[in-house]
């Protein structure tokens, strides 16, 4: 067993806050448990609720190195785990004309010609590491097989080199936007955290933290409007990232309170679709302003 990263759940909250991340009880508790139980943490939730940011803050709070594997459709072993540097190998082979083939062969399949990718990098790192496997749902199912293998015993076999075992288990955080269901097997290996939009209080604190100088009452109203918008069943609900953008915009506009005019003129920052825009305007009773105002 390696030294745990945190002494208590409260300590998680404190140290993440020190790294600029305000954690809910759910986040702090699962982070604490994932570390103590030595299990990967799967964080699932809509875009922009702070999944990626959590990994970043966690690394910074614990003085760990952040190793990130960004998933995408078609990602494979050679991008996720390791690859041989073929160009360099060829050069070496051409340069070694009069060497014994066996000797050359042994040489070109050594450390020097290996290109480690994030999974291998994280496993070999002797220093504390946070391994972020971001947007896992974008990868194909085959990729999950690889993850299962690697996250099972934290070792990797490179046929030419032998088995590499983690010197020190990284803290593993997987994220998913839930565009597809991950396999049961992978989920079973992980602790599961559904991260949703924060409570109004937490969101206000996050916005105030990220946009210093924002008036407190204005922050309250902003969070309230954003909360109302999220209830509307929109095509794209505004996330924390949008709340922060909006706060920045309001600060730049020099607005000191949120009235219909201000909301109307800056709604574009938080809503990306025309239909959502119309819907919100009607529900928030901006519509009577909408007609004369629009050219």
């Amino acid at each position, binding site marked *: 067993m390696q030294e745990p990263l945190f002494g208590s*759940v409260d300590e998680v909250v404190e140290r993440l806050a020190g790294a600029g991340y305000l954690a809910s*009880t*759910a986040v702090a*508790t*699962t982070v*604490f*448990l994932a570390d*103590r*139980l030595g*299990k990967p*943490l799967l964080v*699932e*939730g809509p875009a922009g609720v702070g999944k990626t940011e959590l990994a970043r803050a966690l690394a910074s709070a614990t003085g760990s190195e952040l190793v990130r594997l960004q998933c995408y459709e078609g990602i494979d072993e050679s991008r996720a785990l390791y690859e041989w540097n073929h160009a360099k190998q060829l050069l070496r082979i051409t340069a070694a004309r009069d060497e014994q083939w066996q000797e050359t062969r042994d040489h070109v399949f050594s450390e020097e010609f290996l290109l480690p990718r994030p999974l291998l990098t994280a496993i070999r790192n002797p220093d504390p590491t946070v391994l972020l496997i971001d947007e896992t*749902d974008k990868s*194909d*199912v085959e990729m999950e097989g690889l993850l299962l293998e690697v996250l099972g015993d934290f070792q990797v076999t490179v046929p030419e080199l032998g088995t590499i075992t983690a010197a020190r288990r990284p803290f593993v955080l997987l994220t998913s936007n*839930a*565009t*597809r*269901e991950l396999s*049961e097997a992978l*989920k*079973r290996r992980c*602790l*599961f*955290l*559904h991260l*949703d939009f924060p409570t109004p209080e937490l969101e206000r604190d996050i916005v105030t933290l990220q946009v210093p100088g924002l008036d407190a009452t204005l922050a309250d*109203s902003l969070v*309230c*409007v954003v909360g*109302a918008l999220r*209830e509307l*069943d929109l*095509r794209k609900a505004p996330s924390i990232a949008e709340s922060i953008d909006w706060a920045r915009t309001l600060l730049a506009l020099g607005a000191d309170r*949120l*009235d*219909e005019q201000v*909301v109307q003129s800056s709604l574009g920052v938080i809503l990306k679709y025309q*239909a959502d825009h*119309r*819907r919100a305007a009607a*529900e*928030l*009773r*901006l519509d*009577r302003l909408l007609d004369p105002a629009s050219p």
Partner: protein
Amino acid sequence: MTTEALPGRLVDFVGALRERGIPVGPGETVDAAAAVDVLGLADRDQLREALASTVLRRSGQRGVFDAVFDLYFPVAVGSVESAGEPPSDVFELRDALVAALAEGDEARLRALAASGVEAFGRYGNAGNGGSGGAGDTGASGSGSRLSGWSAYQTLGEVRPEALLARVLAAMRTARPEDGPLGEALAERQARSRIAGFRERVQAEARRRTAELRGRERIASHAVAPQTELVTFTSATSEQFTAMRRTVQPLSRKLATRLSSRRKKARRGQIDLRRTLRRSLGTGGVPMRPALRNRRPGRPELVVLCDMSGSVAGFAQFTLLLTQALSDQFSKIRSFAFVGLTDEITHLVSAGRDEPEGLAARILSQARVTRWGMSSDYGESLGSFVEGWEDVLGPRTSVLVLGDGRTNFGDPNLEALRRIADRARHVYWLNPEAERFWGTGDSAALRYAELVPMHECRNIRQLSQLVTELLPT
């Protein structure tokens, strides 16, 4: 709550989750126990999150989890100590509730929910034998089956919805300078606090009844099932709202599954004849396998649905879902019927921005009946074939949605046979439980002889069917 009593409690808790359709395996149970071991029991919120992270595997399960957690790991036993004096009658309680709702005073709202249940929720002889004594005794309990604490009765007395205007007035007095935006926000806030209060009352009534009668029975009766398991034909309008919210995320998930199936279907298939022909060049040894050509374009979908009575909700949900999946098809055309069929493709695509009124708009804007609102399958299938037979072709898949209850009229099997002959596939999705097919006026079994019919009672079954049946 002591640590020694915990393993048993945890096992019961996990059992109750399983009964509500949350599959918790032995591995998860071990993790849960390990989590409790590491964290201790001192902090209930942490305990809740710890258990959630070990036993849950998807987000839709959280509502059920919370309700069951509250039963098995209650805040308190017996009547909850309330903040301040409990109100003496219903008028006082409602006055206090108006103030608490206007301020959003959580602690006070919790206390009022508890005193409400205490004062108005009792039925039978609940609470007469000294409340709080039942503890952990499981199913035995002291109360008879006919006594308990009722949320329904409490809410009927307190009527929190009827307080909206008063709450808004109180909020207005507190913030007189609010413009129309402020008022719109205040109204939303008030409504969601009232809904929150209702939920508190329900949780409190469940908790107290559970003390009386044992947790197992209450967990399986009083905890609402997760959204994807709610049966279409008995869903309340709140449940339909919750279902509608799943349309977008669900469609993204299904789209990914459909497209990965499509890719696979294209990837692996070897065209034997072309491979052999090619092998002539290599002395008959098939060196280079020839892969089958991609099928051109995407399939067409026709949805034909019964919009009458209790199956309308099912139809509406499925229409919204297929609409959200429209990228997966080269064309989707939708038709609705009650006593007569009419095309509703335009209404469905317009319904994207305002999904909640779709069924109502179909009934008012399409010609789906000659008279009355009872379904006439024979006439409906007949008028579809008559008016739109040409939308069916060798690339069309047809989904028929309905319970096949003909009101004892002619089922017009011939019309369905025509549809099946012309289309590439026809699938019938029936929201009724399979054991009722063919009973009473149901012609389901007779239709099922002509086209494959599948039971489709909830979102889980529907998503499975969509990914398995729809061609790619």
